[in-house]
């Protein structure tokens, strides 16, 4: 039996970042990861660092995350920070093709202004062309968030892991949590690789996080999905910003290597038990079509690989961050519903504040586990 003060379930970006911040504040976290660090969503996502077009409840957290991305070196040290491959300030752009989409952009910016946020701007066709010279004539303009960008997901997760380890956290791979029990001496965490004792447990289990909830009788939605990406062969550099669709299915960016990573909500077939997902050709057409129409330069491109990652999906598509509603000393951070990479550098820091100070400067009410019923359904008033 191993004793420590805090156990983190899950070695994704959020688990590693949580361990990092807890270690920084003097605890000795142990991260238990059933596979390998970054094996799931955190290592295989599209790497989009996007404040643009987020759910308004997420914006304060997302803005704090953006600041953390821009000062990664303070958290990780210069070398590990550089290793993340973060490219900020290139912007993310939502491209509008129809008049309705342009109208929606104006409404969205008005709503954002009313809430006091000014980082989204409507752009016309000329500005769109300036930012993205390769865009087709059918694109009229859109919405931009200029500080946004992208990073290398696998390397980012590894950097947070390494920094956490440097600060004294331990990461145990191939260690699956199969039991969680609270007694007088704190938590007993049973795994297929030994038993652990800790005062505090943090559940960063991604698509499987509901299982840790179930171990203590706390219900959460089990819903999850397999987000799919396709990647082209290397192309000459032609675009800096990340572009996404508004009504049309689209999301893509060009990586440092020159390959173009295309996504936009293409669904694969998830298999939670096998811990993998299949990509399905039938469902890739729409994304391919949009790319084809919006970016003539990609008409000759070749898809060389596709992959999919498993991600928890909350019915209100915002994460669960906060204390367990059934047990003391248990905390949750999961359910990022397809856009949690951008929040990667901040959630762990917020959790460390919550756990050690009892509060966070960032409003988190919308993410409370208490928005679910005991069975794990969203309470009606929570909408």
């Amino acid at each position, binding site marked *: 039996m191993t004793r420590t003060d805090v156990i983190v379930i899950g070695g994704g970006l959020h688990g590693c970042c949580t361990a990092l911040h807890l270690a920084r504040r003097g605890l000795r976290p142990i991260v238990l990861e059933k596979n390998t660090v970054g094996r799931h969503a955190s290592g295989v996502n599209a790497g989009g660092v996007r404040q643009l077009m987020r759910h308004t409840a997420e914006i304060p957290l997302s803005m704090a995350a953006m600041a953390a991305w821009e000062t990664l070196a303070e958290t990780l040290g210069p070398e590990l920070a550089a290793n993340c491959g973060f490219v900020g300030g290139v912007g993310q752009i939502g491209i509008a093709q129809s008049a309705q989409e342009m109208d929606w952009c104006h409404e969205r910016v008005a709503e954002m202004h009313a809430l006091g946020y000014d980082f989204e701007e409507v752009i016309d066709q000329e500005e769109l062309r300036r930012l993205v010279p390769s865009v087709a004539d059918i694109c009229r303009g859109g919405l931009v968030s200029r500080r946004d960008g992208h990073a290398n997901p696998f390397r980012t997760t590894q950097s947070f892991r390494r920094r956490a380890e440097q600060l004294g956290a331990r990461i145990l791979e191939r260690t699956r949590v199969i039991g969680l029990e609270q007694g007088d001496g704190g938590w007993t965490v049973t795994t297929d690789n030994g038993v652990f004792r800790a005062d505090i447990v943090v559940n960063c289990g991604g698509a499987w996080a509901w299982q840790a909830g179930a171990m203590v009788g706390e219900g959460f939605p089990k819903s999850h999905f397999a987000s799919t990406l396709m990647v082209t062969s290397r192309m000459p550099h032609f675009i800096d910003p990340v572009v996404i669709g508004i009504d049309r299915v689209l999301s893509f960016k060009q990586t440092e290597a020159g390959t173009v990573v295309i996504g936009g909500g293409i669904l694969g077939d998830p298999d939670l038990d096998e811990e993998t997902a299949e990509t399905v050709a*039938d469902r*890739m*057409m729409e994304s391919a079509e949009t790319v084809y129409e919006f970016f003539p330069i990609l008409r000759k491109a070749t*898809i060389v690989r596709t992959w999919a990652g498993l991600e928890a999906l909350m019915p209100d*598509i915002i994460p669960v961050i906060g204390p367990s509603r059934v047990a003391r000393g248990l905390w949750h951070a999961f359910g990022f519903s397809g856009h949690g990479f951008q929040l990667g550098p901040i959630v762990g820091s917020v959790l460390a504040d919550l756990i050690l100070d009892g509060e966070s400067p960032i409003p988190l009410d919308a993410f409370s586990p208490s928005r679910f019923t005991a069975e794990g359904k969203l309470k009606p008033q929570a909408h």
Partner: protein
Amino acid sequence: MTGTERENCELAIIGGGPAGLAAATLAARLGVETVLFDEQPAPGGQVYRNIEANSRETGLLTPILGADYARGLDLVRAFRASGAGFEPMSAVWQVAANGKVGISRDERACLVRARRVILATGAMERPVPVPGWTLPGVIGVGAIQTLMKASGIIPDRPVVLAGSGPLLYLVAFQLAKAGAPLQAVVDTSGGSLASAARQALPILAGFAGDLLKGLSWIAALKARGIALYRGGYLSIEGVSRVEAVSFRSGGRRIRIATALLALHEGVIPNNQITTSLRCQHAWDRTQLAWRPETDAFGATTSPLVAVAGDGAGIAGARAAVHRGRLAALDAAFRLGRISRNERDDRARADRQALLREARFRSFLDRIYRPSEAMRRLDDETIVCRCEEVTAGELRQLIGEGFSDVNQLKSFSRCGMGQCQGRMCAGTIGRLLADETKADIADMGQYRLRIPVKPLPLAELAALGNADRNSGPVLEVADGDPSQRI
């Protein structure tokens, strides 16, 4: 009806080598509606590539390629007469577990739904990562042969052949007969063919013909005055292209200046599709390659899919015919054309023939096992040629604690390029096993997803027969573009 208009078929066979041809012929005869897809313009596979044209336009090639090659004509003729459909120039870029076969033909992609699939995709040459192997002017011995078969191209500048495996002397012999300027053959296998044959005599009874053939190639090369070496620790020199090859032989280092070098270390199963299907694979400790696990009829762990021929483990062209027939019998049984008893009765002869072949194969496997001297990897040697990742870079990452081929891939891009890891899949596992003193069988394989062959975006955008609404319905707030996943 051509491939891109076809919507479904009972049995799809991928690959028109001896395994696919024999499978298609028998299945069609048993009344199964069968279609064979191959990316080549004509049936024949690797071994009987372009056989119809080469035997029609007789002249040179059949006499050079030999009687074994000509034998393929009977297989092709039987296939042509069988009533099975044939879709040439159709590259298969996916086989999904539900039987949806993705093909690309004439710049159009489409999905054909099959009730059963037989993969007869054959073998590929084992990559030979020695220092300098990625220089222009270095090619595969099999590739030289492919050029001869497909387009009658015979190298016109001096060529050195190096490596091991039955194909080495066969192709050397074929080149010499064709009058190619063959400079030297460097045999990197451990022992000599003659002494290995003597040791193995008891199990080789009945294969005297094959054995004599191998020895006769060597004798013929000697008679033509071609330099034959036994060597190891190959190293390729050159700046912008190959200039020379050097190797250790009998205690000294020999250097041969050449502008064309062909390497060979045997062939390995072409298992991209079974890997993408997540079929169970086993590490073959003799052939040093992954092969899909199958039952006696070639059925894999993916319920609709069987493998026949070298794709199920290297066993050669003769065995491929029997394995193709067995897979066809099982398909006919599963599709309700014959009873289980009839399947088993008809299978007996093919089973026996296979057992016989297996004896000779185990001899070949033993003598042509890639030698340790060829398998050492210098730090500067490129492992992944698409992304130019060296053994040294991978060693460093392994030293930092990466313990899984897919982690190494994610971090280094090794295996992420155009060839989708075909060239480095074996090497990276070996490197990881060597560095961590672990068993290569535990190192696992690259995770592979469709497309197993690069697919133009334009073709995907216009994919025929796709079921756009096949996706799960996500129960989330909808309609507002900011409520996005």
